[in-house]
């Protein structure tokens, strides 16, 4: 326990000093705010960009506030996830290379505490980021269009949080298993993006797939997902998180000899 708190303090200092605590949430807030704003000012933006003949009239349907929140989630799914992967790809693989690992591994280190401290700090920052991002998006949508019922919004954001926890665990697992930060990013992005693509194309029957969590989150803003499928996906996601974390701990122990001295 003592080791975990010391390592957590180290992680926290590192994340403050490389400004990750600040810039990752700022990126997510910007993503969350841009979507409602650009929809609101779409007519003016088109007007300013020019290219339309004089007197052209385009009727813009008023976007539903739910659609805007789902669009914000879409931004998080692409740019947001890329930012998370690139920000945390080096957390274990990079330490082996830049020398921090030699300082750590020379001590009687519990790899469980080591992995967990990284996981907790990365998850904490990811959670702060997506919640501030979603709340900013929610606020702007409510001001510019109309408010989504807050209960639905909470269920949506909580479900999406579970998905992001899975993503963070996947990134750290890849970082523990791979020899370099670049390969970590490649593995994590391939698994996350290709698996989602395959799941979207072929997986209409795999209703318990944790990869469907973002879809289920979006469904909460509409009529709500199918109860059984949702519970199944949540349970499977939790099992995946524990499994990946266990493998991550095992890999970080096994790969300690790869540290560059």
């Amino acid at each position, binding site marked *: 326990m003592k080791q975990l708190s010391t390592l957590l303090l180290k992680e926290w200092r590192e994340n403050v000093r*490389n*400004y*990750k605590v*600040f*810039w990752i949430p*700022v*990126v997510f*807030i*910007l993503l969350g*705010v*841009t979507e409602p*704003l650009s929809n*609101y*000012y779409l007519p*003016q933006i088109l007007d*300013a960009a020019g290219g339309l003949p004089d007197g052209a009239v385009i009727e813009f349907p008023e976007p539903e506030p739910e659609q805007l929140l789902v669009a914000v989630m879409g931004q998080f799914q692409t740019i947001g996830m890329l*930012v998370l992967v*690139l*920000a945390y*790809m*080096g957390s274990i*693989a*990079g*330490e082996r*290379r*830049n020398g921090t690992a030699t300082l750590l591994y020379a001590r009687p280190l519990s790899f469980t505490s080591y992995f967990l401290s990284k996981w907790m700090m990365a998850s904490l920052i990811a959670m702060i980021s997506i919640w501030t991002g979603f709340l900013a998006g929610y606020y*702007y949508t409510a*001001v*510019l269009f109309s408010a989504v019922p807050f209960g639905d919004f909470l269920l949506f954001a909580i479900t999406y949080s579970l998905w992001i926890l899975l993503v963070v665990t996947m990134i750290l697992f890849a970082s523990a298993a791979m020899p370099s*930060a670049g390969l970590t990013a490649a593995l994590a992005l391939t698994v996350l993006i290709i698996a989602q693509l395959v799941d979207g194309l072929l997986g209409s029957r795999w209703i318990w797939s944790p990869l469907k969590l973002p879809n289920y989150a979006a469904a909460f803003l509409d009529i709500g997902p199918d109860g059984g499928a949702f519970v199944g996906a949540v349970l499977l996601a939790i099992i995946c998180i524990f499994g990946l974390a266990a493998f991550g701990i095992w890999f970080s122990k096994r790969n300690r000899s790869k540290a560059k001295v």
Partner: protein
Amino acid sequence: MIDEQALLLVLPILLLQLALMIFALVDLIKNPNPNGPKWMWAAIIVLLNIIGPILYFIIGRRNY
């Protein structure tokens, strides 16, 4: 074209962008060994808003 309401709505975004840029610039000034020439990174951070600071934090810091 720019009315007061629009300004109030867009102001938080501008402030956040500015904050991001300042964080990146402060870090760049303190960084003894960035991944590439400092003046190049300064130009990227200032000229490309949002993307510039992110690029610097991910590629330019050399933290791995």
